[in-house]
């Protein structure tokens, strides 16, 4: 029987690339695709795939919270997280969320097939950098504080994280309410609680928090061209 894989990435062009790569393996099939985390959770529940490949930086519901939701629904889901960054914080969060594979997007053409094979054989797959961190005692409580780690702030609930992401993506309370099937009043209550917990006073603070905590990801433009000439010491 073929191994059934669900792909979740907000870029169709990336999903096409992943599909082309995975379907070269004759015993694997891509049984579905999703363009954001919410759709991924819905499709996973419908399709019951053997492996779910999830991009971290997706709109509406990011890949880490998607992983958490999937495993909350069914701990047997096997999730591989795809990411553009292997910072300590992202790795830690992916492991905490319950991912069984962690692959850098830039290395996907090389590593993804190995990752799926590993999960198929009931093993885990992580990039060498994750292995290094684990060897360094990364998983032991109280060890290593990453230099990239975001400052410690009060923990948000899963629902509060979802709402934070949606607000930071520019949705109004009304739009968030519609996306989550909640009343606007409920969303506004969550919003007040989030702002109070984090001691924030503006949506700008919330956006910065969402970026620092990988709820949303941004790509920065290349640095401006510097004029040729001697550089200051």
């Amino acid at each position, binding site marked *: 029987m073929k191994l059934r894989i669900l792909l979740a990435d907000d870029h*169709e*062009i990336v999903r096409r690339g*992943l599909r*082309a790569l995975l379907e070269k393996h004759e015993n694997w099939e891509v049984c579905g695709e999703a363009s954001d985390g919410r759709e991924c959770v819905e499709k996973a529940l419908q399709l019951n795939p053997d492996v779910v490949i999830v991009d971290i930086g997706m709109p509406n519901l990011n890949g880490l919270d998607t992983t958490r939701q999937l495993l909350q629904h069914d701990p047997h889901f096997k999730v591989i997280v795809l990411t553009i960054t292997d910072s300590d914080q992202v790795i830690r969060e992916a492991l905490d969320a319950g991912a069984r594979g962690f692959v850098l997007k*830039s290395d*996907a053409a090389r590593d993804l097939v190995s990752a799926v094979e590993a999960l198929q054989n009931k093993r885990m797959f992580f990039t060498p950098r994750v292995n290094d961190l684990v060897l360094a005692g990364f998983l032991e409580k109280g060890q290593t504080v990453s230099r990239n780690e975001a400052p410690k702030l009060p923990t948000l609930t899963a629902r509060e994280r979802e709402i934070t992401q949606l607000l930071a993506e520019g949705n109004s309370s009304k739009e968030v309410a519609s996306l989550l099937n909640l009343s606007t009043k409920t969303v506004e209550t969550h919003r007040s609680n989030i702002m109070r917990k984090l001691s924030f006073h503006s949506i700008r603070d919330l956006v910065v928090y969402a970026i620092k905590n990988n709820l949303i990801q941004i790509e920065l*433009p290349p640095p401006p*061209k510097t004029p040729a000439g001697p550089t200051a010491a």
Partner: protein
Amino acid sequence: MTIRILLVDDHPIVRQGLKTLLEGHSGWEVIGEASDGAEAVEKAKHLSPDVMVLDVTMPRMNGLEACRVLRRQAPGLEILFVTQHDSPQMMREALEAGARGYVVKSNAARDLLAAVEAVSQHRVFTALNGRNVPELS
């Protein structure tokens, strides 16, 4: 006549996705791939493509710098940016660097074929997220 295309993006998986899409179009051929701007400039010399599909953010030499070099090196080559940057400023900069087209990566599956078709006929094609942009030329 076959349109010969060079694909430039630092993520192989994105190049694979673009290739799958482009090769579904008869009469178009992906003749090569490059993973950064410097490699793109080098390969353009040897392969003489008609159209280059170029990312902006890449290591070693970014797409804008590569575009400026290629404008001088291969004036007949048409350059189409396919990028994450859904920004009018970035689009303006790309066109000023000498590109003929600009498409946002999240919409590439929708816009890429029309964009390659247009730039291969030396027409401008620009589309930001969800909206076509009037020609700036």
